[in-house]
């Protein structure tokens, strides 16, 4: 034992501070190598910044479209304004034209309901309300032009991202081919041990190479999404609209995703998702200079939402922030009256308290691009893209304090619309194949969900998607 210690000390004394001058050419290689690493780091930073900028650009395109759409709507409002301002004068002088509800011809007949200040509807003359057909009017040609710009604005950033992916793929293929050639030349000169070591190395490289090839991921996700209803209406429409009770509400969504990893960093994702949207409206709160309010008790609840009733079918329509609610008949438990300003049937007002809940359900088919920022057991990814959303559910409920009943649907809802999504994903590998995902996303609808030109209904939502994915 002591002998061993002596031996150790002898080796240590002679070798611990042993110095030998390395060959001169090493310095050049080291400096070149260090510069290369710096360059690579810079390129990496630029690449990440480029991807972030591309995704941001794609998302900003959505916002820009939104602005363009609003300008289109603004034009519509200006066109309609003279009609809107003229209407009360005409109404005063002539038959007292009704405030517009949903543009359609209305004929008055039959008594609707009774109340303190009510009178039978059959007393009021029939009014043909052709002027106020904004509800079903289409946008002018300028608006269509904006829609075509939307396509090019969306395709450009997508194309640039796809270009980056294909460049990456090509460079990887060239490097792999070069490496294969180098290896085959060298094999003959190696000793057996070296050959075994080389083989091991090649096996590892091949194994790694396999991992870098295209991989599939399938998974399921659920997400509580906080929806914010961003709406605007033309002045005429808004004058006769139910007041929004809530601009935001939480809905539960989710679905199945399929992801294809084209290389170590990039992947493309699609799937099928379900999402819900909602809008709550009430018929109270508005006081803006209407004569009814002047006559009502001060401080008392005041209900004045205008309703439009088709006397033949007894169908009723009311304006809400997200579109015209089309009732299948006059809901029971609701009390209607006529307006002081307009005694025609089309000027009927709901004088009892009621809440209207509009629910919309969508099936989304997304196309997202994902870029891995940090590739380890805990991955961090950036994602962005677009979704096609199919309307599969459109229901309106009324809550009059005695329970919730289905009363109709929202008119003019687009069957298909598009949304842009941007998110940051965190993926934790539970095992070799299964990983846990957490992904905050923001989604913004690119076009109005309602085709009514007087309504611009473009909600956005913030959701936290959680789920599991299986990789193979």
């Amino acid at each position: 034992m002591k002998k061993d210690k002596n031996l150790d000390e002898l080796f240590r004394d002679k070798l611990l501070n042993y110095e030998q001058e390395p060959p001169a050419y090493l310095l050049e290689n080291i400096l070149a190598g260090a510069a290369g690493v710096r360059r690579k780091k810079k390129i990496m930073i630029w690449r990440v910044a480029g991807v972030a900028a591309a995704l941001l650009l794609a998302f900003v395109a959505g916002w820009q479209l939104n602005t363009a759409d609003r300008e289109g709507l603004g034009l519509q409002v200006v066109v309609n304004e003279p009609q809107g301002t003229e209407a009360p004068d005409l109404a005063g002088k002539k038959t007292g034209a009704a405030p517009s509800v949903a543009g359609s011809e209305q004929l008055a007949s039959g008594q609707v309901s009774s109340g303190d200040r009510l009178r039978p509807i059959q007393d009021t003359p029939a009014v043909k309300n052709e002027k106020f057909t904004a509800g079903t009017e289409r946008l002018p040609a300028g608006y269509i032009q904006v829609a075509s710009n939307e396509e090019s604005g969306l395709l450009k950033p997508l194309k640039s991202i796809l270009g980056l992916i294909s460049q990456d793929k090509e460079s990887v293929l060239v490097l792999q081919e070069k490496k294969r050639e180098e290896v085959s030349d060298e094999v003959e000169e190696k000793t057996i041990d070296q050959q075994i070591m080389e083989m091991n190395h090649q096996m590892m490289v091949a194994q790694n190479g396999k991992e870098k090839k295209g991989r599939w991921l399938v998974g399921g996700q659920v997400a509580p999404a906080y929806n914010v209803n961003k709406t605007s209406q033309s002045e005429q429409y808004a004058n006769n609209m139910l007041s929004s009770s809530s601009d935001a509400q939480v809905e539960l969504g989710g679905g199945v995703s399929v992801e294809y990893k084209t290389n170590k960093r990039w992947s493309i994702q699609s799937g099928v998702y379900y999402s819900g949207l909602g809008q709550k409206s009430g018929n109270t709160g508005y006081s803006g200079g209407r004569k009814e309010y002047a006559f009502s008790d001060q401080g008392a609840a005041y209900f004045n939402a205008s309703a439009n009733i088709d006397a033949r079918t007894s169908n009723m329509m009311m304006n809400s922030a997200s579109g015209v609610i089309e009732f299948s008949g006059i809901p029971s438990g609701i009390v209607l009256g006529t307006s002081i300003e307009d005694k025609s049937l089309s000027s009927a007002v709901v004088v009892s308290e009621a809440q209207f809940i509009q629910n919309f359900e969508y099936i989304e088919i997304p196309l997202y691009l994902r870029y891995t920022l940090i590739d380890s057991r805990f991955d961090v990814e950036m994602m962005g893209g677009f979704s096609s959303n199919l309307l599969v559910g459109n229901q309106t409920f009324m809550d009059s304090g005695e329970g919730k009943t289905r009363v109709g649907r929202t008119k003019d809802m687009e069957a298909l619309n598009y949304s842009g999504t941007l998110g940051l994903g965190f993926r934790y590998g539970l095992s070799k194949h299964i990983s846990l995902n957490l992904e905050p996303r923001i989604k913004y609808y690119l076009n109005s969900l309602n085709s009514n030109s007087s309504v611009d209904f473009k909600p956005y939502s913030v959701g936290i998607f959680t789920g599991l994915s299986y990789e193979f």
Partner: protein
Amino acid sequence: MEDFKTIISECIAGNPKAQAKLYQQFAPKMFGVCLRYAKDATEAEDNLQEGFIKVFSNLNAFRNDGSLEGWIRRIMINVSLEKIRKQHLLYPVEDVSIYDSVNFSDDVVAKMAAEDLMKLIQELPPRYRLVFNLYVIEGMSHQEIAEEMSITQGTSKSNLARAREILKKKVVENFGELNAHNNYTA
């Protein structure tokens, strides 16, 4: 010390002159470290090159409160270890040979040149070479070596014993006459 700080900050900024200065300061000593862990000079050169590239790329992670030489030495050892790990991952060298104890005198080693001792170490099988270097030269414990190399402490001890036996045998085989000659002249 202040000079070192300036050189380090210029190296971080990517100044090749500062990098060359730092390299010239430490390269001979670090080449000695790499030689001990490599099987030959070529492998040592590769490790030195790779090690210094890592030093320059990660210099911003170095805290000025420690020894720069110690930090660079650790990088060189890690690079050397990693190289051996990669090359021998699937076919690790196990204790397949049993060496008989040889009649050995420390005096022979005392008279040997450092270059000769280096050559003997380089001729050791990789795992023995690693354990011998880490235990004897770097002064690490068997527990630390076991953690570093992902082996048991028993294997580390056994490898060290085998390394010593091989070294003694080689000393006797190649340099035995040194001792004999000295005895004769004494």
